[in-house]
């Protein structure tokens, strides 16, 4: 089911499959949590500034506490009961897509079609090529060895306002060392 969820996030399911997964989501709390986690992972990979962890819960709480409007009902047309629910669902789906699209445009991703929510390696590669493409003038950047540059870093740190604002943690930039990363 988790694979199906991920496929749903990437809009890779057929309509029938999507309906089935959405139905499962409705009644399955652990699955709902997985859904949240996938989105959180997607956010983390894209480095989207995060909302508080229980943002969704807060929205639901606010919704629940909103006053219920008691208004006289319009006369129900005979056909409406059959279509009301699917119609409401499709409106919900459209607004969800609207929200998602809006969130994506907020992220300043130049090519939205390449943003894949659940495919981590793809996102990483996209991010790298973007940086390369948008900075054509800059010569190749290598990682510097802070050990070799330490005396310069120390001398710089003394006059950098980052020390006045951040305090001593700013000196961690002087101490930091590249560690070999292994998978």
């Amino acid at each position, binding site marked *: 089911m988790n694979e199906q969820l991920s496929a749903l996030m990437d809009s890779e399911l057929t309509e029938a499959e999507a309906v089935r997964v959405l139905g499962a989501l409705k009644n399955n709390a652990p699955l709902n949590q997985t859904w949240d986690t996938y989105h959180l992972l997607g956010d983390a990979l894209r480095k989207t500034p995060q909302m508080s962890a229980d943002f969704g819960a807060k929205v639901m709480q606010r919704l629940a506490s909103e006053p219920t409007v008691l208004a006289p009902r319009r006369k129900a047309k005979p056909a409406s009961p059959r279509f009301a629910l699917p119609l409401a669902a499709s409106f919900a789906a459209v607004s969800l897509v609207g929200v998602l699209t809006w969130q994506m445009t907020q992220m*300043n991703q130049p090519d939205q079609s390449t943003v894949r929510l659940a495919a981590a390696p793809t996102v990483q590669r996209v991010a790298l090529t973007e940086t390369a493409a948008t900075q054509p003038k800059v010569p190749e*950047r290598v*990682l510097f060895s802070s*050990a070799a540059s330490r005396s310069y870093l120390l001398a710089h740190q003394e*006059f950098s306002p980052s020390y006045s*604002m951040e*305090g001593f*943690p700013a000196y961690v*930039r002087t101490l930091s*060392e590249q560690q070999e990363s292994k998978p």
Partner: protein
Amino acid sequence: MKQAWLACLLGFVTASAYGAEVPDGAFAWLQRMATAAHQLNYTGSFVYQHGQQVETSRITHLTDASGEHEKLVTLDGSPRQIFRNNDEVYCFLADDKTVMVDKHHVTTGFPALLPQQIADLKEYYDVRLDGRERVAGRECQVIYLAPKDQFRYGHRLWADIQTGLLLKTSTWSDQKDIVDQFTFTDIKIGAPIDRNDVRPALNGKKLIRSTGEGNAQPLPIDPGWEIGPTPPGFKKIMAVKRVLPGASVPVNHIVFSDGLAAASVFIEPASNKTTPGLSHQGAMHMYTRKVADYQVKVLGEVPSATVMQIGDAVSFRK
């Protein structure tokens, strides 16, 4: 008359409703943060992230009658530590045998933001409050500094509501990527700290001091060097000729700052170690080039465009 009162009242209500968005509120927080970082006693652990790297460090800060004393120890990888005792900084190298000692010229640090700094910040950053979030179990005020051009990074700062101490900071590139970030995971503020905890153990260590230090007046830089035009907002805040620890020849050191970020220019005779090019680590960029027989090195927590423009603007006139 009645209308006038009503208008006044309305104005007041509107002002207080939007009070959180008034930039001066954000600047008051920056002031508070700068003061807290240097005057409070605290000890805690924080995580420093840059690129794919994550490093954990422990920090202790003590201010007493004799001044400011602080210690920063890395907890991952090779053991490295750095101490500051007022104007002296002791950097213990990874071999654990050698200590680099740097005598700072500014004895008091910058306990508060100077009015000029605030004026500069307003010109080159949009500064605003951005809600509250929790860091290390404490409620924080978020302050956001959005750069107005590509020559500086954006900064998001989380200041402890109770004390004003900075508990988290993230630095953003114009591609909206985090370039580096540090976050306290636990912190004790105001607990008593033993002076011995922040005293460097120098026994049996080889000290690398800079020769010629101890001069009351730092020397002026060599005549003939010109730097300009620099990127907008980067003003010269300091120029001095000094000998760096472990070096034998003096270096001209000139610092440019926009009030928040700074770039240092180091000019010295070129050696066989001079390798021109651009390198970086997190928010720190370094750009090296040769001008005549000299090595020009520009270093700072600024984007690559900034170190390159400053470096390329260095010229020598006889």
